[in-house]
Structure formats: structure tokens, C-alpha cells
């Protein structure tokens, strides 16, 4: 199949990104499972996978970033990658927007956030819709929402799993950051935690018992700071995985 695809149009790569691969490992397995379930034939780079460069870029290591982009392009080309699917909004935005800027025309790989893939699968009937059973609230990750304009896809996925979304005062384009991005979680943990706690309070005001998000950093960071509300990553709403 892979050789066949190589000839036809190249490989689809599932790129979990460092945070999912090394920290939120439970999410990686579930994402792999669902991709298989909806019939996506994908490859993974495992040991060969390198950081996309997002943390280097945000911290101002612009030359390191350029180098990583070039190295990654070579790895992807060596594996005939034509399409990248990632569950990490920072990786997705980096590949889609920053690599185009850094590499110009040489960068011609299609980049999809996994929520776009899953939403399409729902439309195609590959994921069955469930009856609404519970209220939930959703935190738009900055890099996914404001960064890539992806607002509706995760909401459609949440609804498909039987949840009614109770929106926060600040959502979609006006979403309020979890506080973890831009290197703040590691550089300024106290500040990052204070912002997260405020976001948690905003979520609790909706009356929902679950706060869902679909970024590994938002998920880990909000979970660490949550009280009296359960934080779930989008893929954890799929009970049958």
C-alpha cells in the first residue's frame, strides 16, 4: 500500500509532536487508533521525528528554527510525505504558516490539524453521532483558533460525542489564553498558573462539569490548575477508543 501511495501521491504522516509523544502519551495512542478507525493510512517517524521548532521560534532562536525547518523538510521528503496530520495546534501552525515563511516555495506539504480530519470523517459518516447527554465547555487553543481560524471543527466533534457546548464568555476569536504558551509555562510558571486558574474560573461559570480542549499544552496546563472541573482532551471524549 505504501509503495503504491508513494507512486500515486506520497505518504500521510501522523506527527504527534514532542509534547504528545513524551508527555501526554495517552493521547497519542488514542489519536492513532481513531485515525486507523476512520481508514486513514498513515506513517509515523517515531525515533526520527524532530521538534517542529515552535519553542525555538517563540523564544527568538530564529537561526535554530530555520535549521530545524530545513532538516524537517529533508526528513519529510525522504519519507515521501505529502500530507501532515498533527493533533498539536502549535506544530500545525508552525508547519502551515511558519514553514511557508521560512522555506518559501520549497514547502509544499499539506498540513491538517487532526480536528479537521475528524470533522470530515463525521460528515462522511465514518464517526457515528451520539445522543446529547451532557453539558461541556470548550477552550479554543490560541494557535488553533486565532492562529489558524479553526473554530467550528472541534465543536462539531464534541457534539458528535454526545455533548452540548456551553460557551464561555470569552471564546472563539475572543478566547482567553490558558497561560502556557510562548514559553511562559517554563519561564514564568507562577504567572502561567495564575492565568490558567482564571481561565478555569471562566469555564466553571458556564455550569459545565467538563472543560474540553484540543491542544496538548492547554490540556496539561489547564488540568494541572483545575479545581472542581474536569479537564479533558478532545480525544478523551471518544469512549470507545
Amino acid at each position: 500500500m505504501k509503495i503504491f501511495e508513494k507512486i500515486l501521491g506520497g505518504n500521510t504522516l501522523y506527527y504527534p509532536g514532542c509534547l504528545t509523544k513524551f508527555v501526554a502519551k495517552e493521547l497519542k495512542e488514542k489519536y492513532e487508533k481513531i485515525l486507523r478507525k476512520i481508514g486513514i493510512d498513515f506513517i509515523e517517524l517515531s525515533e526520527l521525528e524532530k521538534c517542529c521548532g515552535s519553542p525555538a521560534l517563540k523564544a527568538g532562536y530564529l537561526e535554530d528554527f530555520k535549521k530545524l525547518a530545513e532538516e524537517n523538510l529533508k526528513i519529510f521528503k525522504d519519507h515521501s510525505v505529502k500530507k501532515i496530520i498533527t493533533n498539536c495546534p502549535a506544530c500545525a501552525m508552525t508547519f502551515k504558516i511558519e514553514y511557508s515563511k521560512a522555506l518559501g516555495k520549497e514547502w509544499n506539504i499539506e498540513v491538517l490539524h487532526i480536528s479537521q480530519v475528524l470533522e470530515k470523517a463525521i460528515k462522511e459518516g465514518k464517526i457515528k453521532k451520539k445522543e446529547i447527554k451532557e453539558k461541556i465547555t470548550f477552550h479554543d487553543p490560541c494557535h488553533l483558533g486565532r492562529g489558524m481560524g479553526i473554530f467550528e471543527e472541534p465543536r462539531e466533534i464534541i457534539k458528535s460525542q454526545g455533548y452540548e457546548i456551553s460557551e464561555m464568555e470569552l471564546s472563539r476569536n475572543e478566547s482567553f489564553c490558558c497561560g502556557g504558551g510562548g514559553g511562559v509555562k517554563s519561564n514564568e510558571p507562577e504567572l502561567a498558573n495564575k492565568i490558567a486558574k482564571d481561565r478555569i474560573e471562566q469555564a466553571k461559570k458556564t455550569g459545565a462539569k467538563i472543560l474540553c480542549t484540543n491542544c496538548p499544552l492547554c490540556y496539561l496546563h489547564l488540568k494541572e490548575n483545575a479545581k472542581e472541573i474536569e479537564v479533558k482532551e478532545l480525544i478523551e471524549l471518544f469512549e470507545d477508543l
Partner: protein
Amino acid sequence: MKGEFLSEKTKAVLWKVVLEYREKRKMALLRNNLEYENFREELYQIKKKAISEIESLKKKAISALKENGINVFEAKDVKEAREIIEKLAEGKTKIIKSKSNVFNEIEEEGFLTDKELTETDLGDFICQIMGEKESHPVLPAIHLTPEEIAKKIKEKFNVDLESKPEKIANFVRNLLREKISQSEIGISGANAITSDGKILILENEGNISLVSKWPQTHIIVSGFEKIVENLESALKIVKASAIWGTGQDFPVYVSIISGPSKTADIQNQVVIGAQGAREVNLILIDNGRTKLLKEGFEELLYCINCGACLNFCPVFHQIGRNYGSKYLGSKGIIFAGFSESFKKAVDSNCFSCTSCMACYQNCPVKINLPELMKKLRGYLEKENLQTGVNKEMIENIREFGNPFGKTEEGKIPKRLYCC
């Protein structure tokens, strides 16, 4: 991080104001029949064009302003600007001042201390008597309650006031009228300057009208980036400043100043100085602006100082004015890097920005502040001003291809450097 966190009380007040502001802004756009994205794009194009030809616009503006009888001075830095103001104020003591961000740039301890300088913007006046710094460019006293202000007025002026906004405003109105009537110099900023020699200043309170017209001498301090092609563009900026600044349709007052006050009522002979200022001086300050232009940060000069970038900034909501320097927020940090020093940018909490893009989303002239912030951090890297944490992160990426370093099976990395 440098500085303290805001109190829970201040945070709550800030949120209340910001959420009300958001609704007002929506309504103001609606009433003006303006669509958010379209109007932003229009404003962005106005500023982009003006800044791309700023050298020639500046020349045109200066010659037109001089023709109109306005004295124009160019100051390359804050020191030169201070010297010009001191010279203009020689022999005079009573100064009234309205809100000016550029004046904040210039100010330092000891400057004009031999004069009696009175703030006439209510928020700034309150900050002045409280001995506090402004906490928001448009709402300087947002962190203070009416009770706190009334208490200070009792202390300072021995007047018992009910702690109600209207009582405070009325007390200050009467007090300031006395100061204004004795004033010799008025200092203000400018919101826009046209290349054909007009200076636009907007306000709600009426104090700027008095500052600019009552005293003999009016001194306007501004950056050259306020220059736009024509009055039509300038009025769009005025409108945007009102909508994004306070959520108003239009400011209560807009002064368009094109020269000193004059009359020809007596036998058609022109006399300079009727009821308005006899002498109008404009100081155009550089203070790092040319550097910003040269280094590819020209977008920062699109800024119209509405403060909208702060209103939904997660960091501003935690640390207030500690996030920034002379100007607040990410704009202020980047500006500090080029007008003060890169070290100052670090001390203004440059590494607290989460790159969430809420500032960009809320900016009427579409300044991509997170993008500029990355670029600034690039300069800090070259200047060896990086944080220890970032140094660890980049070493890990260089050696292991991931930000966490050597990862052991079953163990979760201690620090999450990601994103």
C-alpha cells in the same frame, strides 16, 4: 518576572470594565455601520501607506505647519525633547497638561520640577495626587475606587466628598478651572497630523480644548508616525481611536489646530493671538522610531494608542502596568527595546508574552505584535539576554531534537518548554 501581581480586587474591576467595553465597541461599530474586519483593513492600509512614505510626508507636513505659523522642532531623543521644552518654558512657571503618551516617554525625575505642572485629565489628575502611575493608557485610574480617591482628596485638600464619581469630577472641575485660568503654558499630545499641516487632538473631557487654547503657549509633543496624508485619513483614525479606545462612536471633542489663534477684525489687519494660543509649538520626537523602521518593526509605528491590545491580554490582566515600560503591553516592551535598551525590554517582562494573539486580534490597525515579539526575542538572543530556561530548551533541541532533552521510558519531563 519583574514586579507584583495585581490584587484580586483590581482584576475584578478590570474585567468588569473590559467586558462592558467589548459590548460598547460592538455597538459603536454597528452604529457607525462599520464591519470589524473591513474597517481594520482600511485603517491598516492608511497607516501602512503613510509609514511607507513617512520621510516625504514628514517633510511636507513640517513645511506646511511652518507656513501655518506653527513652530516645529525635531528631537532625536528624549534629552533633546526635554531641552526644547525647557527652553520654551523659560521664565514661565504655570503649566497645565493633558494626556500625552509621548510626554510620558520624555518624562524623568527632575524634569520641569521648578515649574508647577498640573494634570488636567481627570484620571491622570487622580494618579498625580495619589502619587501613582497610570494603569492603562486610556483608563489611567482604572485600579482606584471612588472611596480611595475621596479619601485622598480629604487628606490633600481637606474637603469632605461623597465617594461618587460625579462628586469627584465636580470637585476636580472647580479646582482645575482655577489652575487653568492662571496657566502660562499648555502641553498636550496629538492623535494625528496631516501632511498639509493640521494637528488633530481628540478628547471627551474638554480639558484638552482648554490646555490648547487658554494659555499663551501651546506645546504639542508627538511622534512623527502620527503623520498621515490628509484630513480624511486623520478623521478615520480619530474615529477608530474612539471606537477601540473606549467603545464610543466618536470622541466628544476633536480639535483641529492649523496655527496660532488670530484675528483680522480690526481693519483687516492680522493680529496673532486672539482668544486661543498665541504661540503653537510642535515637537516631533524620534526616540528609537527610525531604528524601528530600519530594523523591520515599522508596524509598531502604526499604533494609534487606543490600548485595545491590553484589554484581552492574559498577562496584562495579571500584572497590569508591570507588563511594559513607558508604553504598556507588548507594544511597550518592543518600543522599550529600541528607545531605551534591550535590557529594558527584558526587565519589562518580554518573556511573559504567551504569543496568544489576542492583542493582534484586537488591534484596529492590525499590528502583528506576537510576530514582532518573536523578532525582538531574536535580538535578545544575539545580545545574550536569553533566559536560563530558554537556553536549556535550545540546548536540548540541538542535542536531542526535542525541547525536553534525554527522555527516559516511563518518565515525564520535568519542565514543559513546549509551544
